[in-house]
């Protein structure tokens, strides 16, 4: 029921889908309210998000700061373009690693499906230089560790869960 899919579309888009066992309102709030975002948008084990600003309205600001507590940190800023409670948001974001990545345009849809929600996130692929930068910095410094975790998760079926 909750399998994550991730596909590329053309040369410039990635489409992610995921199902959740909660109504769209709850999933939408978890994606747009700072206090809730801080509880799960954390990336690899050991990272926290001590600063989170989210103003879910057109033109509203987004700012997230992550740290690993060991001197590693990076942040993201963005702006909401469209907000339709509790079904859709469009925003742009860029990461500072510390140099900014090109703007990533993200459309997120929250659709009721049975007792749950189908989340569809359509984002713009960063160009090759931006990817290389993202891969070589901060959050991704432990690529080997990431692969190992991916294997663990595949082994335990979590990636398909």
């Amino acid at each position, binding site marked *: 029921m909750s399998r994550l899919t*991730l596909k590329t579309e053309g040369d410039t888009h990635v489409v992610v889908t995921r199902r*959740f066992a909660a109504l769209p309102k709850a999933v939408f709030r978890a994606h747009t309210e700072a206090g809730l975002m801080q509880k799960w948008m954390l990336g690899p084990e050991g990272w926290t998000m001590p600063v989170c600003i989210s103003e879910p309205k057109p033109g509203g600001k987004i700012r997230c700061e992550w740290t690993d507590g060991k001197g590693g940190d990076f942040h993201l800023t963005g702006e909401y373009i469209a907000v339709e409670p509790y079904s859709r948001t469009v925003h742009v974001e860029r990461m500072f690693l510390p140099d900014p990545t090109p703007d990533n345009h993200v459309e997120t849809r929250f659709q009721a499906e049975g007792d749950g929600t189908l989340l569809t996130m359509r984002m713009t692929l960063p160009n090759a230089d931006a990817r290389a930068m*993202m891969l070589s910095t901060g959050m991704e410094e432990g690529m080997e560790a990431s692969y190992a975790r991916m294997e663990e998760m595949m082994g335990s079926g979590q990636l398909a869960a």
Partner: protein
Amino acid sequence: MRDLDAGFAALADPTRRAILARLASGEATVMELAKPFAMSQPAVSRHIKVLEDAGLVVRRAEGTRRHLSIAPQAIDDLDRWLISLRDTLARNYQRLDQLLATMDDEGKEET
């Protein structure tokens, strides 16, 4: 539309991951690859076929021998980025599942 599922499905098996790990240290024949595994050569060949179909492994014929190696572009920059994105999202969404379980239909956290 490009689909990473074949690659992920190919990697979702411990034998195939072991085969890739072996090939990471250099090219090998089917027989050499089959040696460490407690399974028949045809069974190992089937695993290799899955890896080939997913574009992760390529073969080179030399007489009757077939030498297998990891496809140089198997995991390119884009795939690495997508894999790391998928890894991050998978972890985040597992945490979100747990958070949602503590919230009511209105999205308020239950105490």
